[in-house]
């Protein structure tokens, strides 16, 4: 079988070996969680509880009307201590609900899950309502409301499970595929059912090839495939950013998502491995999205770990409790997410959120920062760009303040994957420029639209 891939990309050092063979561990003794109210891509929520309220595990604590909203649930049972602004994993301050665990109460009463639901028996509307009610958002990064993604306005021909996990360091999707292959397959099947897709593909990068037999076995033994659903595993070249939605679709279907368009425009739905498992649990147990898997690793992490942690757990707590151990002396940079797209934060006193796939504790060497030099026009960025943009020219246009030209070159098409900055021998901060540029361009367009009116 030819290994598929896309054009461009780069090979940052993988550094996955540290945690790839460590079994996933579940955090049980969390005493306090800080749950950000707004964890999805969409309109802000209203808080449904007050300070002093007793909440159950799985109880809805924030919600709002509107299509682009997803409720948030208490991830542990306990007392609402505070509702106040705290720093979130994207470095902004936002309202957070602080819950202190009350362990004395009996676990039976302290849990409030939804009733189980058979996704293959219920209607599409019911299924979508369940996905929303369970608070599921994309766990691969963006936090896009999954129920919106599962209600496409165009016919879907293939559902892709994104098991690429192309970000260096991170191993949680790999562990999930190894440990829970059945759930992954079931998740694909549920998604296929909801979007009425004839085909499902589990995409795995070559460096995780050892998961393929397990997945294939699970597919073979799954009641869904026996009932006629077509699911297969596809091996992809290990290359960053293979896990990017657009790159994945191109590698597997050969089609390109049109500029400004969505995967559904080429008949695809892409779901992260974690998201699939969360969906399975939401139907099978009625369990909302109150915990997620993540990898804690890095050069300044003496004991790396793959964990399942309640949403809102402070990473500091994970470390003090010894699930993972930090080397504070060596610690120079904390990243929420992967090294290529994650966010550098000032400390690890920040909660695990629905889209936190890992926390990296980097040491001096890994965190080495190079000062920017002038662009030598080597063109490496252009050859590496996964979107075939021209980062060097784009950066020049942005720097010159020529946003119209920048838009033409494709500023808004940049997926901020960071490949260009990674390969640049002059260590140009290309992606940061594009982010700033996008912000300004969007503001400009908004202004224009207002003026036009």
């Amino acid at each position, binding site marked *: 079988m030819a290994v598929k891939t896309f054009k461009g990309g780069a090979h940052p050092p993988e550094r996955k070996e540290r945690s790839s063979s460590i079994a996933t561990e579940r955090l049980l003794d969390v005493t306090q969680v800080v749950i950000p109210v707004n964890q999805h891509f969409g309109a802000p929520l209203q808080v449904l509880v007050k300070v002093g309220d007793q909440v159950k595990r799985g109880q809805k604590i924030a919600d709002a009307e509107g299509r682009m909203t997803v409720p948030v649930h208490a991830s542990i049972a306990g007392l609402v201590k505070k509702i106040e602004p705290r720093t979130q994993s994207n470095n902004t301050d936002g309202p957070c609900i602080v819950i202190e665990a009350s362990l004395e109460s009996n676990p039976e009463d302290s849990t409030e899950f939804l009733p189980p639901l058979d996704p293959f028996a219920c209607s599409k509307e019911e299924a979508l309502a369940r996905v929303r009610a369970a608070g599921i958002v994309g766990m691969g990064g963006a936090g896009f409301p999954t129920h919106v993604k599962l209600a496409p306005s165009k016919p879907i021909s293939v559902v892709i499970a994104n098991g690429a996990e192309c970000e260096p360091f991170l191993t949680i999707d790999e562990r999930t595929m190894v440990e829970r292959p059945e759930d992954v397959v079931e998740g694909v099947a549920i998604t296929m059912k909801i979007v009425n897709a004839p085909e499902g593909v589990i995409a795995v990068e070559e460096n995780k090839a050892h998961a393929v037999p397990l997945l294939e076995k699970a597919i073979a033994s799954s009641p869904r495939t026996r009932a006629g659903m077509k699911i297969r595993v596809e091996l992809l070249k290990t290359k960053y950013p293979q896990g990017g939605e657009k790159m994945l679709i191109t590698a597997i279907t050969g089609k390109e998502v049109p500029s400004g368009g969505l995967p559904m425009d080429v008949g695809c739905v892409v779901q992260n491995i974690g998201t699939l498992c969360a969906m399975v649990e939401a139907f099978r147990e009625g369990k909302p999205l109150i915990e997620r898997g993540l990898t804690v690793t890095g050069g300044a992490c003496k004991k790396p770990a793959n964990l399942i942690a309640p949403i809102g757990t402070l990473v500091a707590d994970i470390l003090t409790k010894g699930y993972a151990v930090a080397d504070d002396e060596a610690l120079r940079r904390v990243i929420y997410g992967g090294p290529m797209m994650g966010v550098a934060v000032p400390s690890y006193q920040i909660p695990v959120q629905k889209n936190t796939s890992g926390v990296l504790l980097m040491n001096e060497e890994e965190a080495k920062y190079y000062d920017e030099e002038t662009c030598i026009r080597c063109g490496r960025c252009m050859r590496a760009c996964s979107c075939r943009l021209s980062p060097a020219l784009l950066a*020049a246009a942005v*720097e*010159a303040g020529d946003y119209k030209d920048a838009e033409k070159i494709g500023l808004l098409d940049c997926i901020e994957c960071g490949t260009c900055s990674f390969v640049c021998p002059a260590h140009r901060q290309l992606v940061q420029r594009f982010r700033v540029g996008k912000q300004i361009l969007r503001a400009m367009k908004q202004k224009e639209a207002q003026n036009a009116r």
Partner: protein
Amino acid sequence: MDLMKIFLVALLVNNVVLMRFLALCSYVGMTNDVGQSVGMGFAVTFVTVLATAATWPLYHFVLVPLQLQFLQILVFILVIASLVQLVEFYLKKNIPGLYAAMGIYLPLITTNCAILAVTFENITYKYSFIQSIVYSVGVSLGYLLAMVLLAGIRDRMKTSPVPKFLQGTPILFIATALIGMAFMGFSGLIK
């Protein structure tokens, strides 16, 4: 072949701007972006040809018979200035689309020395009418070429960390010097 030679020499070998230092004021002022320089270049081409078409007969059929060759400077510049003015009026009123594209450059042209130089040289080089027209097209397209090339480099220099003491006009002239050096490659091309 003769016409071709006149044209190519005027366009490349003896480029008005790069080798003959004419029309520099607008060369510096009007090369902020490529579109602008193209507009200006075509406007100049148009007027140069028109000016040649007007002054050549005037010289040969009026000034020479009357023995008034010494009024050449005065008559030529007056004719060109009025011509530009008339064209401007005409365009503004009757072809506003074209005026918007190119008319705004017209006033600049009155004092563009390349145009006057061409009309003089048509006389000094004893060109026939046809040769004069070809020569004027060659010269003005040479001007357009130089304008566009500088505009391209200027565009690029917008993000260059040019040393402070050279920023602005000095570096434009230095860039022109280097363009001129490259154009030396055309020298001797047509003998």
